């Protein structure tokens, strides 16, 4: 049976009817793409002055925070939904952002720009459109990407999406007679409920279905609409995506879902077996996907004419900034001897080293977090800390070893690197401020974009506080603002055992909550001054 062809107009209507609640895509931010490229020996344009094109930009949820963060960079967003483009333009003008342009355009009709782009982003497009548009998408990457530029393309992939194809098929089948989006949603959720109810825990597949269903049932309607009820859905195998990229003279740089690492190895036994089966890196990666049940990829592509280093070299770390959420397990860290010291990461990982320079570097990074430090300053500080306890100045071999250790930490996900300095403040000033966009977002939704380009969900108090952080209020004024908000009924303070708190109790509650909330905002990289 021939698949029904879905026109761009149908896709536009679908997004106009139910706008996609898009979020900032952390690993599409140009600074990350620049970092991955530099670590593999490329020389891409610095994010701060780059030209960035986003295909399928929705209402600018990804591009607007970037445009605000990089005033000297240029951003172009393209989308086919009039309603979403209008929203994006409205916010850009409210924030007086002059470096971002939103175009209402079908990708197929998009006119090539005279100037190439350093970064091209396409989140949630490739698998959500029909073949001519997919073709155009990669053709645009080929034609519009600067020689050292990086393209970010996300897509649904198999085997992970295979089961969701079944869900999607049945949801569409059940909703085939429904007239309105609301009715379609309601009909299509019934099959999820059926699968949940008639679960047989003895069968491996039923267990998998339950695991996959749980998050699906929690998903807000809008996500379910665009992922499972969208007019088009074309998951691809990784190898097929790469074959498509190859036809457009594009090659693999990395996989953004893995961070900066080029590949995510399986257990050693499986890897050994895999290497014996095939030496083709694309086939190896495809087989890893089969074993992992990968459902989504965010693949980074560069021109085939660009030289990509197979490994990440320490030389490529030059000029980069390091940060790490690490804490010594048993402080103080022993910098005098080669005894092993352990550090734990925020994510629950653990790292151990006997090397004094590495210990000093991790100790320093932990103190700085969430702030980052340039590699030369990190090496310098580690050196002086070691010298301060009487060790001789380290030689070039020891410095190289420190860099090797830092690279290991990077591959292991213990430390993060970026090319530019922090876009946020790691201290709380007298009159703190957040970005204008954050204040605007906090007034409208629960989700606010951080200066590390994360979409963060905040509670009502934090959001009210964010709207007040314009750099003109000190602590006392902020407490006044929160009290005023509670008088307007926008914040509700309850006292233990009592229905209504007294005005004194309310003020006292905010006095106590304020420093904790500010600390939270700082940790989430919300503060800019």
């Amino acid at each position: 049976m021939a698949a029904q062809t879905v026109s761009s107009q149908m896709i536009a209507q679908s997004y106009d009817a139910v706008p996609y609640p898009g979020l900032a895509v952390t690993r599409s931010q140009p600074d990350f793409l620049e970092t991955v490229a530099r670590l593999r020996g490329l020389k891409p344009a610095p994010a701060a002055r780059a030209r960035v094109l986003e295909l399928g930009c929705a209402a600018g949820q990804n591009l607007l925070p970037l445009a605000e963060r990089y005033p000297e960079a240029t951003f172009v967003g393209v989308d086919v939904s009039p309603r979403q483009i209008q929203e994006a333009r409205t916010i850009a003008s409210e924030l007086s952002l002059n470096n971002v342009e939103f175009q209402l355009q079908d990708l197929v009709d998009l006119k090539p720009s005279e100037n190439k782009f350093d970064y091209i982003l396409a989140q949630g497009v490739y698998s959500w459109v029909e073949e001519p548009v997919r073709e155009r998408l990669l053709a645009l990457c080929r034609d519009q990407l600067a020689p050292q530029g990086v393209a970010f393309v996300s897509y649904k992939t198999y085997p992970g999406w295979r089961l969701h194809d079944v869900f999607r098929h049945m949801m569409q089948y059940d909703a085939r007679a429904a007239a309105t989006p609301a009715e379609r949603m309601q009909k299509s959720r019934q099959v999820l409920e059926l699968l949940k109810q008639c679960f047989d825990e003895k069968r491996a597949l039923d267990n998998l279905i339950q695991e996959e269903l749980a998050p699906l049932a929690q998903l807000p309607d809008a996500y379910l609409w665009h992922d499972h009820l969208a007019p088009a859905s074309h998951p691809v195998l990784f190898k097929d995506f790469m074959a498509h990229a190859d036809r457009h003279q594009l090659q693999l740089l990395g996989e953004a879902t893995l961070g900066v690492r080029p590949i995510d190895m399986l257990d050693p036994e499986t890897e050994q077996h895999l290497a014996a089966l095939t030496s083709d890196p694309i086939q190896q990666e495809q087989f890893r996907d089969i074993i992992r049940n990968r459902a989504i990829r965010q693949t980074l592509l560069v021109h085939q004419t660009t030289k990509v280093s197979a490994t990440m070299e320490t030389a490529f770390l030059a000029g980069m900034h390091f940060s790490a959420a690490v804490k010594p397990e048993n402080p103080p860290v022993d910098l005098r001897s080669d005894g092993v010291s352990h550090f734990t990461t925020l994510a629950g990982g653990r790292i151990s080293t006997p090397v004094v320079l590495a210990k000093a570097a991790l100790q320093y990074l932990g103190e700085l977090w969430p702030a980052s430090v340039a590699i030369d300053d990190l090496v310098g500080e580690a050196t002086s800390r070691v010298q301060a306890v009487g060790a001789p100045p380290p030689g070039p071999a020891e410095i190289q070893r420190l860099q090797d250790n830092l690279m290991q930490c990077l591959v292991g996900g213990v430390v993060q690197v970026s090319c530019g300095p922090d876009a946020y403040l790691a201290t709380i000033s007298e009159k703190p401020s957040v970005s204008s966009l954050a204040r605007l977002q906090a007034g409208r939704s629960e989700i606010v974009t951080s200066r590390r380009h994360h979409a963060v969900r905040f509670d009502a108090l934090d959001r009210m506080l964010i709207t007040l952080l314009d750099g003109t209020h000190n602590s006392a004024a902020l407490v006044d603002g929160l009290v005023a908000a509670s008088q307007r009924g926008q914040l509700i303070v309850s006292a233990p055992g009592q229905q209504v708190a007294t005005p004194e109790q309310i003020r006292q509650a905010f006095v106590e909550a304020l420093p904790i909330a500010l600390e939270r905002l700082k940790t989430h990289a919300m503060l800019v001054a």
Partner: protein
Amino acid sequence: MSASAITLNPYDEVPFPSQPLPQTLPDRLAAIGTLFGMTPPPADRCRVLELGSATGGNLLPMAEHFPDSHFVGVDYARAQVQAAERAASLLGLRNVELHHADINTLGDSLGKFDYIVCHGVYSWVSDDLQRKILELIQHSLTPQGIAYVSYNTNPGWYLRLMLREMMFDYAPAGATAVSRLARGRALLEFFAKAGERQKTSYGELLKLEAESILKHPDGYIYHEYYESDNRPLYFHEFVEHAQAANLQYLGEAAVATMFASNFGAKAEEHLKGLCPDLISTEQHLDILRTRGFRQTLLCLPQVLLRRHLLPERIESLYFSGRVAPQNPNLDVKSRELETFKTASGIGLSTPAPGLKAALCLLNDAWPRAFSFPELLAAVSERLQGPSAAELPASVREGLGQNLIQCIASGLLEINSRPDAFTTEISDRPQASRLARAEARSGSRVTNRRNEIVELDQASRNVLVYLDGNQDRASLLGELMAAVDRGEVSILKDGIPATSGDSVRTTLETTLDDALAKLASNALLVA
């Protein structure tokens, strides 16, 4: 298609194992048609067409089974058609026609058919050929005729299809079948082990799926996994294809899968609210079962089907079943709830004395089938009540209702014809020519229920002589000769014995055992 293109068929390289398929027998199809209100042509005087008849593994036993019916087989692999022709002439079958032809160019030249069987073809051919198959069925069916079409379905293939693609990529076309199979197996073993090491539900599933493919013989793997066109579809899509070809959904060869009640009260309740019709209900059941295969029956759109099952419609049918009572001391006359179970684990609990008596009778007599009147008479006798003729109508209807329930839950088999075998051992027992020929060359023989039976050496040796002319003494003589030739060994105190009275005594037991085994496996025709 040119003649040379026909002979360049992948099936010519590795023959696909051709097997009898009991569910395609015309008398089984007729019974299902009858159940849903049709009046299908009699299976013992009908015309049957098989599309994709391969080496005749399914068609030839059917032809032997129904000598007054006419059987036509079509296949596009020359080597297979020739093998089928040789076998048909060896068996002296005069009611079989075999054609080396392409379905595309077949047209209406073959005439009309009461039963059309198309097994293992639909999922492996192009959209165009799929349409052609359904068109051919539409044009060739007689008014009350029934077609059987099997195909792979989603979601059962959801992971296997991808493994298939990986196997294909890892051993692309061009290499020999043997080397492709070896590489494919190596890859599956890798996935099975790697999946197990993941320690996730998905990893477990990957392991199970890879292992389930590895279990198959090479011939099956080659065709199922290296054939160029295997595209599972959803049940509702197949029904849409059939409707587009002006055909109607009759039911499934595995009738019990049509009923939501077999999936538990919860699912039944849920499906009632969700599904507006039978197609939708069955589609959702496929999802719950992760069904990967269907054997769908189609009929012409003019046929008026009756989905509500009524007792009077099954009174012309024959019933059989291996349904063991779970309580060895059960009293059929009491109104105690008793449970019966099939070998595959389908169970039914009932307090009804009539049904309990019927199920006990069927189980004891398995594989024998009983007509409705026979069953009714036997039940009344077992319950020591009035004779069948004097039974009140409500008893008759009650048994009918109960049997319908058993059919719907998959507990009993139904047939439009009496058994083509006997479970009695006569003075000069006889087996079919086909079974005798098969027993000469191997241990796998086709019985009169169109099933494959795996025989031990002694039963094989007995079977080959069952031409209806040998009495017990001459069968013993043949067995003795087999011992002398060293084909059958008789151990006495752990040492092979060759002659003497003690050997004769042992051989008598061996013969009794073998005949009993052949009888209970539906291999005796007289």
